[in-house]
């Protein structure tokens, strides 16, 4: 199994579709199938991917609905993300905040670092920022690992700035902040396990898709 063919003419459509499917928590193997179906169909029909399959977000919705064994009402989506991904992003952000604040507190107790208003605002606005980032900046890359690592680095920088510059609203002892922060980070980053988008047509031997 290898990465999909990067020479495909509708590359930007494929990238947008990949992101939309990733945001809906579709497994990498299934995304590979969907992309291969789009490539195969457009090669046969001569149509553009957008002409044959419609907007990537709408097609991703149709794929998710078709994957469900028992169709039910769509779960609440925020910017195309599933609630589970938004919860993971929030856990990552809060974990980073606690770990950063707790670490600084442990190193310089006299500075009395704490969670301030800006940091609190960041916690509340964080999931929204991550949603916007993934949907806009993230379009350039379909690889979930790189996207999450970059968003984690961004969250870290913003959290560090917020905690370091903000006036403490209340003080959280580092002995509490660090373990809770680590726990939230572990919960939030569980989605980082490798789940590459694999091209089912790349193998030499045909295989059953199911």
């Amino acid at each position: 199994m290898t990465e999909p063919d990067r020479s495909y003419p509708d590359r930007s459509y494929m990238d947008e579709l990949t992101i939309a499917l990733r945001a809906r928590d579709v497994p990498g193997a299934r995304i590979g199938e969907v992309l291969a179906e789009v490539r195969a169909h457009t090669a046969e029909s001569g149509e553009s991917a957008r002409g044959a399959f419609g907007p990537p977000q709408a097609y991703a919705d149709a794929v998710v609905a078709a994957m469900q064994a028992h169709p039910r009402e769509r779960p609440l989506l925020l910017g195309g993300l599933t609630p589970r991904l938004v919860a993971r992003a929030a856990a990552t952000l809060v974990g980073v905040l606690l770990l950063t604040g707790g670490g600084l507190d442990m190193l310089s107790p006299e500075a009395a670092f704490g969670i301030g208003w800006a940091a609190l605002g960041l916690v509340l606005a964080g999931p929204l920022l991550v949603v916007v980032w993934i949907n806009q900046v993230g379009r350039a890359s379909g690889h979930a690992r790189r996207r999450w690592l970059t968003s984690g680095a961004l969250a870290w920088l913003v959290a560090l700035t917020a905690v370091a510059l903000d006036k403490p609203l209340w003080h959280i002892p580092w002995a509490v902040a660090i373990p809770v922060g680590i726990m939230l980070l572990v919960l939030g980053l569980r989605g980082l396990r490798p789940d590459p988008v694999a091209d089912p047509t790349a193998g030499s031997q045909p295989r059953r898709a199911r």
Partner: protein
Amino acid sequence: MLSVVGEGETYGYAIAQRLGRVGFGEIKGGTLYPILMRLETDGLIDSRWGEGSKGPGRKFYRLTDAGAAELARRREQWHAFTKLTENLLNHGSRDD
């Protein structure tokens, strides 16, 4: 869709063309593949990737045993429905 796959192993674009020829009009990929995916999720069809004459391979679909049974059931239901409708249209006014 089940009926077309039931005619023998086939692939997405050929299914769209077959449906178009019998009068269903142009079936877009965005409509076709989610239905095939749904049928596959429900275990009514099976698929495999094979060689394609153009570009990157083809995904071939075939009916499973459960799909064949479902096709027979739906065909029977459809025949019963069309027979009822036909009777109603042809003889309904005489019964009034």
